């Protein structure tokens, strides 16, 4: 008999004894037989001792006057919120295991006023001369224009995250659709074809569209806007800033948005069929390996990723 088989047998025997002894119907002879069984073999004795130790946690609860029914209610309440959590979190966990993270280059900025821009698939981290930290997402471009009176960052293309250092001068981030004004904290601004999205990661923001409409955006909220007006602000989902670490964190967003986020990391065309553009996606993807991200999407969604050439990829129904 292997050690494993031996243990299984031992557990079976012990279980039979314990089930009988706890029934409330065990006789004096049953108890005597159990004691004899326990003393017959050192392993039996040992297992019984170890079980007493394991059950110590129940003794603590009992000693504090907790009833079985209360304990059951407590455990099941905790279990319910855990299941909700796991449902959301585990979607990405499998992907996480293979997601290596690449360190960003840290580049000191020597010349202010110079255009900063990143190529396809590259991010860049820059420390501005006031100590603010600027991160450019792939295929992004900004101008930095500081004077003794004000700090101005002009977003020309793509997406930035800015950790605004404390300073007496206000920090203004300008885009073709409007302006964002920050007194400190961390913010993010993404510029699309027709609109901009501002996220207040830490600290509140003040915004103004080009047409002059104004909005106070509380911290942990985001809002998109065009030249004229704001959409309804919404709470941050939590994964908005993950691209800084080379990750795309998606929680129940539509496929088209996910592909939009991958696009700056790919040369060539990435086309999405409107029939699947609205599919909901959750997960964690590695931006620096967008082909892998597409493969994961193809495995988990009813879609087909057709690679005509490396430069022409289209995503359609399976």
């Amino acid at each position, binding site marked *: 008999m292997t050690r494993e088989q031996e243990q299984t047998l031992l557990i079976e025997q012990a279980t*039979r004894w314990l*089930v009988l002894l706890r*029934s409330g119907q065990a006789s004096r002879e049953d108890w005597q037989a159990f004691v004899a069984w326990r003393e017959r073999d050192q392993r039996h004795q040992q297992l019984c001792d170890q079980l007493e130790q394991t059950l110590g*946690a129940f003794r603590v609860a009992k000693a*504090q006057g907790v009833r*079985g029914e209360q*304990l059951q209610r407590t455990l099941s309440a*905790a279990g319910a919120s855990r299941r909700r959590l796991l449902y959301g979190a585990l979607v990405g966990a499998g992907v996480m295991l293979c997601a*290596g993270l690449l360190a960003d280059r840290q580049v000191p900025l020597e010349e202010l006023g110079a255009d900063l821009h990143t190529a396809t698939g590259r991010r860049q981290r820059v420390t501005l001369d006031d100590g603010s930290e600027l991160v450019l997402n792939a295929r992004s471009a900004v101008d930095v224009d500081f004077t003794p009176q004000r700090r101005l960052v002009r977003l020309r293309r793509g997406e930035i995250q800015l950790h605004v250092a404390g300073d007496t001068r206000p920090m203004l981030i300008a885009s073709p659709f409007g302006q964002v004004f920050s007194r400190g904290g961390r913010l993010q601004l993404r510029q699309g074809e027709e609109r901009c999205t501002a996220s207040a990661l830490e600290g509140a923001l003040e915004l103004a569209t080009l047409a002059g409409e104004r909005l106070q955006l509380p911290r942990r909220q985001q809002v998109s806007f065009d030249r004229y007006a704001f959409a309804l602000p919404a709470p941050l989902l939590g994964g908005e800033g993950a691209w800084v*670490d080379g990750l795309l964190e998606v929680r129940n967003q539509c496929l088209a948005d996910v592909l939009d986020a991958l696009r700056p990391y790919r040369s060539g065309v990435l086309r999405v069929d409107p029939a699947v553009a609205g599919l909901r996606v959750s997960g964690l993807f590695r931006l620096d390996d967008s082909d892998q991200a597409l493969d994961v999407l193809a495995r988990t969604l009813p879609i087909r990723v057709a690679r005509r050439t490396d430069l022409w990829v289209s995503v359609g129904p399976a």
Partner: protein
Amino acid sequence: MPGADNSHGQVVGLLFRDHYDWLQGRLRRHLESGASAEDLAAETFVQLLASPVLAPIREPRALLTTIARRLLFQLWRRRDLERAYLQNLDPEAADERSPEQIAELLEALQRIDQLLDGLPAKVKATFLLSQIDGLTYPEIARTLGISQRSVSDYMARALQRCLKASLS
């Protein structure tokens, strides 16, 4: 092999120097207070140090993220239990328990939760009525509205689980 342990310690030391701040920053985004992000990041390195060296660490940040994620789940799990404790157990005995007793009880809850994790609700209920309240099988059968035969089966499942946990 003490030599290998030592070099593992050195590797982890280097990783700590290069990645601790980064990890802490990442964790902070998932947690409310900076202090526990520090604890969690530190605990991640402690676990890495204690884990056997299986292969050279090629992608340290991926590995650290995996360990930290596991710790984060444990932390969330503990918080869920604490919240459930406050809602279900505390109101009735709030004034009577000392902070030490509450800490002791929460720790016991966590161990019980781990021990019984995954067992069906009826099995848990049966076992708790026996183990905590000391009810006999006929009493449990009446309380839960199930047969005595089911009580025996459920007890066997729960006890088997406890015995297995005692052996490992």
